[in-house]
């Protein structure tokens, strides 16, 4: 250091701040891959591709459970009675108001397809149990009706509907 003029001083301060800032940016950038690696990897993503399910073997009043992206999906072939129950409710009185028509595909009223994960804390509700002819979650007693809507218990929302479409009358494609 030959001079200790204030100009020299401020040039030094600038240098220190610039170095510190660049080093901080570098450290932050280096942290990025360490976090990004936590994402689902490419093979997991690829395995989450849409699946097709044949509905033909499911009799009236029966249900099956299939897995898509590691989640259980209930496909319920609803009886006349179940459909009527689901339609007779005063929608406005529900905790998560949604008409039955919004929860099934038009023209396929007998098919209820829901993600079988309780919206409370993620347990798997049991089909055909509880007071509403729908699902009953054994963990903390949430009850869903035959449209998969929450009717009673701590769960805040209706069972979620996965993305799906009818490929034919007896076949759906989930995802």
């Amino acid at each position, binding site marked *: 250091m030959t001079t200790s003029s204030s100009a020299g001083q401020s040039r*030094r301060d600038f240098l220190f701040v610039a170095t510190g800032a660049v*080093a901080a940016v570098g450290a932050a950038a280096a942290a990025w891959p*360490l976090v990004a*690696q936590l994402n689902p*990897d490419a093979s997991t993503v690829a395995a989450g591709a849409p699946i097709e399910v044949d509905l033909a073997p499911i009799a009236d009043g029966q249900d099956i459970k299939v897995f898509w992206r590691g989640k259980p999906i209930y496909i319920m072939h609803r009886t006349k009675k179940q459909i009527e129950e689901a339609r007779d409710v005063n929608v406005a009185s529900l905790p998560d108001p949604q008409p039955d028509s919004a929860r099934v595909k038009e023209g396929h009223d007998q098919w209820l397809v829901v993600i079988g994960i309780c919206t409370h804390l993620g347990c798997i509700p049991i089909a055909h149990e509880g007071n509403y002819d729908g699902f009953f979650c054994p963990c903390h007693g949430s009850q869903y009706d035959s449209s998969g809507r929450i009717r009673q218990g701590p769960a805040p929302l209706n069972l979620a509907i996965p993305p799906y479409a009818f490929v034919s009358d007896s076949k759906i494609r989930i995802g």
Partner: protein
Amino acid sequence: MSGPSSFQPQNSVLKWIERRLPIFGLVHSSFVAYPTPRNLNYWWTFGGILSFMLGVQIITGVILAMHYTPHADLAFNSVEAIVRDVDYGWLLRYLHSNGASMFFIAVYIHMLRGLYYGSYKEPREILWILGVIIYLLMMATGFMGYVLPWGQMSFWGATVITNLFSAIPYFGESIVTLLWGGYSVGNPTLNRFFSLHYLLPFVIAGVVVLHVWALHVAGQNNPAGVEPKTAKDTVPFTPYATIKDAFGLSCFILFYCWFIFYIPNYLGDPDNYIPANPGVTPAHIVPEWYYLPFYAILRSIPNKLAGVAAMFSAILILAFLPWLDSAKTRSMRYRPLAKQCFWIFVGVCLGLGYLGAKPPEGVYVVAGRILTACYFAYFLIVLPILSRIEKPRTVPNSIADDVLGKKKSVVASALAVIGAVGLLALDGGSTARAAEHGPTPPSVNWSFAGPFGKFDQGQLQRGYKIYKEVCSACHSMNLVHYRNLTDPGGPGFSIAQAEALAAEIQVKDGPNDAGEMFERPGRVADKFPAPFPNENAARAANGGAAPPDLSLMAKARGYERGFPQFIFDAFTQFQEKGPNYIHAILTGFEETPPEGFELPDGSTYNKYFPGHAMKMPSVLADDQVTYDDGTPQKVDQYAKDVAAFLMWTAEPKLEERKRLGFQVMIFMIILTGLLYFTKRAVWADAH
């Protein structure tokens, strides 16, 4: 860590904590106010660099363990899945695998610095011995880590190294069984090595704390080797040493990045890209470069027990150094004879490293014995005698005198880099030895070579076509999926194209609800189909030699580049041995073997194949595969295209790696420059 601190926090919360746990005072006295000799040179920055590398290894290691499967059947593929499928997985893996080498480069420099400046002498004996313990732990950790990818070198390295213990009289065999957990190296071995590989770095961290503690009690040594006497001899650790260490570290990271982004497999062994096979030993078993000098010592002694004993004593002798060298003068700067001997000793170590990578035959054995004798002579004869007879030059009165007395040489830092490169260069001998016999494959001009290399999409598509129409009749490609064909940096097929290609194959799936297996059209998530249901079928159908899986072929083959070419390769980023070799093999078939060559039945003569008798027949002919883009339909072109395609299947993230590498290099150069000027500005006050 040196006595009670005078640190007094102002903030009331800090005060409250400090009264109950004086942690800020500890940090302040150890890393801020701590007096550090003002004449330290850049060789002293390697302690900080080593701490950094330990941190890098622990962080990347913990992350890799999140994705790794320690099972003999799954480990190899899980490592490849990390590289191929995990976000930045390739980066994390290369950080870790090259990090181990960087760790050892740094530790060797750190040790040689201690050796040169007499940092082991009174009162730093325990500090030094703790260092030797850390080094031993590092070796154990590095060895077990190298086993985890479960490639051929992993497996055979594990077999050879664990068998060292069988040399121990009486208990040897039982100890080896305890290490293996079976009758040979196998799944239980892999499991325990994984567990211990995870544990040991934390043990190292613990010993490092002791090492630093001992350092802060005894104080740092310095190039003059005289203890600080007055306040004028020292500067506070922060900012002076901190900024100097930061600059040194930044340079080191630049060097490290060169390896990660441009030559990530330079220090590795091609054989380790072949899955472990308990039935076939690679032609030369060579440990990682950092064990080579000791490996050379082991091999130069023709008796099992004596060889193993010599190898371990070569390391343990370091712990006795404080008593072997009793000279009062610490720094070899003032010991002209010892200084010369020191540099000869460095040469001996490099020489042993070079020999460790060579086959144990002929002149190499003799040279190995001579150098082994020199290695031990340095510790057992040269140092003890010199410390008695040598007349040292006068040492400076104080550190302040030392600083005033001489101009700082920049040469030191340049030497550091050259030394490190030299050390690395040792390895080249070991990286490629597959093709010892026969001419060297000619180097082809690849579009993906060099710092800005990119794959030629058209070439990859043509290469895929050849693989599909020709190679895939016999060779599987188990690590590549149809979805990969659409990945960025690949052949650039559209999703629809990849789906159509996948749909051409039938995949066995199931069981269905009736419990039966069924066939369905392929999906993009499926891997390329294998031509044979299992290895035995492949072997039976191909005259006894199973055609190897091609996924990693371009990284699993190499050849000798020879000295000094392999050193230049580190600078020119030459990483294309594999594709050169594949191209050479595919174009190297000859109808009639040369005069006098006895070709076994069922083999074909190949100029470039080691041993020349190849089970694979010549499969390519001009005009055999139709190209739609007007590229000449010649065998040479076919060979190039398929070799490029195989380079992509072996290193699918190559483009991403080089692109990110360029950004990181630019950033690190800027940061290093800034740190240099900051360091100058800070130290301007100290002179």
